[in-house]
């Protein structure tokens, strides 16, 4: 399963101070204060689970905490909503099957 999302990266309209997070072992510089889902979209990486049924890569759909498509393992805890979780320096983010 490739890491890159087949979706052109989003861009940020503001320049903000950055923090480092780790996504599947790779270091990312991301603007502070934004959600994990936004941070990954900015890098063209998939903020979403892989479906346990069929294995398809899903991607954040509602971005308001309703759809649970963006559930990820954050700091070792699965089923956390990437759209509702703010990035923090040193945070580890991994994809989960769900």
């Amino acid at each position, binding site marked *: 399963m490739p890491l890159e999302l*087949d979706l052109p990266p989003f861009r940020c309209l503001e320049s903000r101070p950055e923090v480092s997070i780790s996504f599947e072992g790779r270091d990312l510089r991301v603007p502070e204060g934004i959600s994990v889902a936004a941070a990954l979209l900015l890098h063209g990486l998939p903020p979403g689970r892989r479906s346990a049924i069929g294995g398809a890569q899903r991607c954040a759909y509602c971005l308001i905490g*309703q759809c649970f*498509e963006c559930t990820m393992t954050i700091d070792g805890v699965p089923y956390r909503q990437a759209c509702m979780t703010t990035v923090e320096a040193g945070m580890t983010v991994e994809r989960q099957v769900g």
Partner: protein
Amino acid sequence: MSTDRFDLAIIGGGPAGLAAASMAFACGLNSVLIDENPGLGGRVFHGIETERDVSILGTDRIAATTLARDAREAATVLSGHSVVDIVRDHEHFQIKTLHGNELRSASARRLLIATGARERSMAFPGWTLPGVMTAGGVQTLLKGARLVPAGPVVLAGSGPLLLLVAVQLLRHDVPVAAILDTTPIANIRRAMPRLAGALWSGSVLRRGVGLLASLLWQRVPIYRGVNTIAAQGDGSIRAVTFKAGKRTHRLDCALLATHVGILPDIQLAGLVDCQLRWDASIPGWTPVTDRNGKTSQDGVFIAGDAAGIGGAEAAPHRGRIAATAAAVELGAIAPDEGDRLVTLDRKKLRRLNRERAFLDTLFFPSPDVRVPQDDAVLVCRCEAVSAGCLRALAAADVAEINHVKSISRCGMGACQGRVCGPLAEETLKDATGRSAEAVGTFRVRPPLKPVPIGAYAAFASDDPPAEARFLYTADW
């Protein structure tokens, strides 16, 4: 584990909850405002507290920053707290919240639910592909993280938000390939008698006309009477196909944003067993409330869109009215004083309701938007349950939605039916001809958001509960 005690717990920091917090303070209540986002503002005013330059935002967002500032002074604010469970414990509601990976607890004598609205989903072939998002989601990224997608973007569906998002994207140089309007042509005729009343009562319609003019000026193609939408692509969306009139079209795009109106967020109302009714004008399930937002459950009030779609402009008024009613119930103020405090709010609401009636009629979603047409389309994204699977159950006379859930797993995923609920209900109604009441709605089970077992463990007492009645079970 210590529990903070309050007179009133307001859940949801959108316009209704913010206004309610200030009013509760004015009435002398000690209240707590709980919201799952990192900052206040709710969904409609998402990111309002971190806005760098409010001057570019327009008057409503400036007013919302004031609401948020006042609310912070009026109540204990718990941001980043998701309410996962509420139980009644004699005269108090015990509210359990998840903050990061930790469970916390607060208690209050009255509950005011102001959790706003959720978007109705439109399910079509390819809607689970990365690159298909709700228009509200695209807007949330813009408001909070200040993110915009790469283009070209296609927007599909019906309602004012669609136009607003299109204009906002264009303002930030994101190419918008087209707007696919699914509004049934017949709705326009039906809504016309309500137009005059609406024009003078609210601002949504006037703004909508402005947005439409802006899109036409920028030559964004708008297709009318659109149906049979499908997202095309392999790893993610590459194009969207659809029918407008008799012609089939195909447009390349990097993002498809959909919006077919909003529904009350009924998770909390369902959790605390508030009576719901089917509101045919939305159409959707809505909590039963009186004019003060009081529900069928003692001590529970609902305000704003969570009590029935009224829009962001109406929400603060509804929040103030409900907070005042809670204060009267708690004996903090006299009933006639309560009436006096909200006289203006009631007047404003009556005016806004006229516009709402027009909008509901104009943007009433067509059956082919509410019911996935293709059997292969997934209704439940979490458990991958297709429309065809639901229709097969309906054909075998299994059409009560909680029964369907137990057999098909539709609605058993982490979203607990927030997304698939309305789609599944409409599919079952359409397949059987049964009423909304006969099909029902998903029972809400705690926790409302996934909670790590470790968080419960930290919350547990060391001693086993006294269970004198039996020792061993087999089935359970």
